[in-house]
């Protein structure tokens, strides 16, 4: 049993890492990865929603009729998204200001509904939590990697809580394209390409 929990947890970290292996959740990964701070914040918020929605969906999976399962999942997910939004507003307000409109969009993030539908509605709660946690951490990791690439090349530094860690000297001229929207597409494409060159195992 411990083995299967570990298996469900680790698959989200590499073999099924979103969005590089399962191409889901592209909206946030394109929208908020201009800084590492935003990327990780978004990833953690998604992880939170993912774990709890997975848990509750899994808990009620036997009592939810199949015909209304999607509305039920959406209600559960939306509840946790609102909770995240309120909590972020209350405790990490500057981050909330930055992620602003993207937080409510977690509801329609394919990963969350995708895991609820594909995994949590068919598996026991403890496995679902492991799955959600693994997927969420993997997603956070992906967002962090992509946003790190973009922020480093785009600004020459990584900024955490307004303290920049300068990685290149003053002679570095920022590749501004990378932090702009088209840069996200190109960068994501190149990372997807590299991930496909690396074998799964």
């Amino acid at each position, binding site marked *: 049993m411990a083995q299967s929990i570990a298996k469900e947890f680790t698959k989200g970290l590499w073999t099924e890492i979103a969005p590089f292996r399962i191409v889901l959740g592209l909206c946030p990964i394109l929208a908020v990865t201009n800084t590492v701070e935003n990327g990780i914040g978004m990833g953690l918020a998604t992880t939170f929603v993912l774990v709890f929605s997975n848990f509750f969906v899994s808990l009620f999976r036997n009592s939810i*009729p199949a015909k209304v399962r999607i509305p039920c999942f959406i209600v559960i997910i*939306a*509840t946790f998204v609102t909770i995240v939004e*309120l909590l972020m507003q209350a405790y990490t307000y500057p981050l909330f200001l930055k992620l602003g409109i993207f937080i409510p969009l977690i509801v329609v993030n394919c990963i969350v509904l995708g895991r609820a539908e594909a995994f949590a509605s068919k598996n026991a709660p403890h496995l679902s939590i492991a799955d959600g946690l693994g997927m969420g951490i993997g997603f956070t990791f992906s967002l962090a990697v992509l946003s790190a690439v973009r922020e480093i090349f785009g600004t020459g530094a990584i900024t955490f809580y307004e303290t920049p860690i300068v990685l290149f000297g003053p002679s570095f001229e920022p590749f501004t394209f990378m932090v702009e929207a088209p840069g996200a597409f190109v960068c994501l494409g190149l990372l997807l390409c590299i991930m496909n060159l690396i074998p799964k195992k």
Partner: protein
Amino acid sequence: MREMIKMVMVLTIITAVSGGILSVLKTSTEEKIESQVLKFQKAPAIGAIFDTATNDPLKERFKIPTKVKDKDIEITFFPAVLEDGSKAVAFEAKGAGFGGDVGLMVGIDLETDKIIKARVTTHSETPGIGSRVKDDATYVSQFTGMGFDATFKLKNNGGDIDALSGATVTSKGVSVAAAQVKKLYLKLKPQILNKMK
């Protein structure tokens, strides 16, 4: 039929529970959020507007209940005494922008009835386009010194406000907020003066 009932039941229960949890959470975090909003949103705007205030406008804030479009709301006012001794008040109004409401904080000199400064507080505008109304102080600086005889509409609608190029909808939201400020101020001025005595 039974299945139908079950479906309705389950959905009702889930939504009810969810609604309950959320309302509890909303009320319990309301205060915290308000203080956060004050700290991170209103405070910088107030600070920028009343950069020469001798008192603490945040602390001395007061609320006046009023009706906007048949809805009872409370408006928070931030009074200030400036270095030159003049009294002023700042408050926020909202107008619909591209992604949601745009909040505009306006500081008004109570004696001359002129706008001291205006700042955008909240918005959900597209980063890089509409968000410039907040990031770019030169845009809202056009309000400085305007009196309430001005028409708070965009210039191409026959008003006095310049639009921010490329962000007409957001600019329109800002002008609507400014017009709202004008309306509220003219309506509530006696009460404000009363409170500030």
